[in-house]
């Protein structure tokens, strides 16, 4: 059964999209039946379930649901809550790739859960496996002041082209694409297999900078520019050429050397460019060239809501700001400028003190859906920093929104602060992890819970991974924490100076020997103290680090342990 979809300001499935998702569910239902009857071995079944988002984790199956370009309607979020209640333990985990993971799915229920998703035009297609994964975007897309063009139009075009791509469903390794439409990159495009940056050239035309071979994982690399300026209508032909070169020449002899970044590193970006351009020249004027009508039809669906400009000042906001310190702090850290006067972009923090980063219960999801419906045009975004975003909130509604979010536990004034930690699921859930991540995040979060202190410390990004696969993006944390296993003991390696802001994308440098689990909080505390003592006017933690170097931090930290 299908629900009627309310009007949204993002892509609406048509009958073709719906048919494909329904047929995919039917195909997977048959594959699950064959697995349960023993017709398929686990070895044969594994790649099939992975391409439908189903992992076998430490304790159970995990279902990773795609939230394309992080955009959700209130109705879709309610359905996710329903699915979490019915097929899981009543909660879900928002990930750094703008997806939602349910950790306790039963194999026999998975087809029904996918059918329920299809009712609201959602799926779990290609959220795992060695193929083109769910495409991610700037979580402020469609609302940001600095946006040149909404990147989600292009994400949707790429989503359709990559869905069940017959040639690229068995690549050497997974393939992640991110797109940003703003000069201030919020989509980390330089650490993706392919990153696309929309920009305007001197002739006033908008096109893509195509960046290739970035990535984190065990061999972190910053992506290199493959093409400075690509006309927009040639995007799919260029991607097809890039993927074809990768499919043919990417390494398959070693799992850890199979990503495109290794190919680019080994043959060099010049040779990569030569190969891609040669392939592209053959196909650029073919069927993949995007017709203007095709682009327009999709772009129209992303037309922003009709927001009436309002006064930027609000007496209610001013009053509450003076009355309640926490609201004042929240305004500073959790709201961002909107392109329409009188509106703000609100970030709901999924990192209340001491909680596992990115987790939301079904009740909380329903609550945020209500808030979005009341005050944000029924729309939400999932950020790669594992928070939820309300993109279109009138400034005069900020007090109501803050109170409602606080009631749900999502009103913490900590976005961009030391407790807005990114952490992977770690050894509590993940079969690959060497060490736990969530409990470390929770201890740091509790230690720095005081909001005034957090705001005094300022912008500081802590990112924690439970193994070198780096799902917690520790390489690009201002403070990166990596869990390692040394003879059965969980130790944590600390690095400083990572960043993903555009133009400044940098990988952190390891400070020294790994520290024990119960010393991580002290270690972080000593790093913060060093910063507070040494910081210059207006300097963030990472700025001070860049200016004074690792030595003072290192001395203080190892001295304190």
């Amino acid at each position: 059964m299908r629900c009627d979809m309310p009007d949204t300001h993002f892509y609406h499935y048509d009958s073709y999209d719906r048919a494909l998702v329904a047929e995919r569910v039917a195909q997977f239902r048959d594959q699950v039946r064959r697995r349960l009857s023993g017709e398929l071995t686990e070895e044969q079944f594994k790649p099939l379930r992975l391409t439908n988002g189903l992992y076998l984790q430490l304790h159970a199956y995990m279902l990773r649901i795609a939230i394309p370009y992080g955009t959700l309607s209130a109705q879709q979020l309610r359905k996710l809550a329903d699915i979490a209640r019915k097929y899981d333990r009543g909660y879900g985990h928002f990930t750094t790739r703008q997806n939602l993971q349910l950790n306790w799915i039963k194999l026999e229920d998975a087809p029904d859960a996918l059918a329920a998703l299809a009712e609201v035009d959602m799926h779990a297609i290609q959220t795992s496996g060695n193929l083109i994964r769910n495409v991610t975007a700037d979580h402020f897309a469609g609302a940001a002041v600095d946006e040149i063009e909404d990147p989600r139009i292009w994400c949707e075009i790429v989503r359709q082209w990559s869905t069940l791509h017959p040639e690229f469903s068995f690549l050497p390794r997974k393939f992640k694409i991110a797109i940003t439409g703003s000069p201030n990159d919020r989509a980390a495009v330089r650490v993706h297999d392919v990153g696309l940056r929309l920009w305007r050239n001197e002739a006033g035309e908008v096109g893509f900078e195509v960046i290739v071979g970035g990535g984190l994982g065990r061999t972190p690399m910053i992506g290199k520019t493959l093409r400075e300026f690509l006309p927009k209508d040639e995007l799919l032909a260029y991607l097809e050429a890039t993927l074809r070169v990768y499919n043919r020449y990417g390494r398959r002899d070693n799992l850890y050397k199979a990503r495109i970044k290794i190919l680019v590193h080994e043959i060099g970006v010049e040779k990569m460019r030569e190969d891609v351009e040669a392939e592209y020249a053959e196909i650029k004027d073919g069927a993949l060239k995007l017709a203007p009508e095709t682009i327009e039809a999709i772009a129209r669906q992303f037309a922003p809501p009709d927001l009436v400009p309002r006064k930027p000042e609000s007496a209610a906001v001013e009053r509450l700001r003076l009355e309640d310190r926490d609201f004042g702090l929240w305004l500073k850290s959790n709201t961002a400028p909107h392109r329409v006067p009188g509106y703000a972009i609100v970030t709901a923090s999924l990192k209340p003190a001491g909680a596992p980063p990115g987790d939301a219960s079904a009740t909380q999801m329903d609550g945020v859906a209500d808030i979005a419906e009341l005050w944000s045009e029924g729309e939400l975004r999932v950020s790669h920093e594992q928070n939820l975003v309300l993109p279109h909130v009138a400034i005069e509604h900020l007090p109501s929104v803050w109170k409602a979010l606080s009631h749900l536990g999502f009103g913490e004034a900590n976005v961009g602060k030391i407790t807005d930690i990114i952490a992977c699921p770690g050894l509590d859930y993940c079969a690959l992890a060497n060490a736990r991540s969530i409990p470390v995040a929770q201890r740091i979060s509790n230690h720095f819970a005081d909001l005034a202190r957090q705001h005094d410390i300022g912008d500081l990004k802590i990112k924690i991974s439970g193994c070198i696969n780096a799902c917690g993006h520790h390489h690009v944390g201002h403070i990166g924490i990596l869990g390692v296993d040394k003879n059965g003991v969980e130790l944590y390696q600390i690095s400083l100076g990572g960043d993903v802001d555009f133009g400044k994308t940098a990988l952190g440098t390891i400070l020294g020997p790994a520290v024990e689990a119960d010393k991580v909080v002290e270690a972080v505390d000593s790093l913060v103290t060093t910063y507070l003592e040494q910081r210059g006017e207006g300097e963030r933690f990472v700025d001070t680090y860049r200016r004074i170097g690792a030595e003072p931090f290192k001395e203080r930290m190892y001295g304190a342990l």
Partner: protein
Amino acid sequence: MALYRQDSSRPETPAVTLSNTDDVQALGLEVDRLKLIVLSFPKFTDGRAYSQARLLRGRLGYKGELRATGAVFLDQLPFLLRCGFDSFESDQPGFGEALHRARSLFSVVYQPTEDGRLPVSALRLASRQ
């Protein structure tokens, strides 16, 4: 190993068997003479032959039989068919029945390939005109 051919009356020579690391474009005009090209899947998860198939059909205009051999399972069929394969060696039970169903498993395709199916973008354009 059972052989499933779309047209069993077609000649099978001259034929060539390629490794999935061979550059198919090196065949050049030779393809016009060939009646059968066999491409291999050493593992289910090794997808290089899909690109070889598309280059043979699309770039070189190969019209003869294109056979998939090796780790060929029925769940790959929708992809294999779309890339231009029209004969298959597989020992998986049920493969033949799956082959009959494979073309109708998905009524919708998003990508233009050499199988002649109209991608959704073309259908949408046509319905708007």
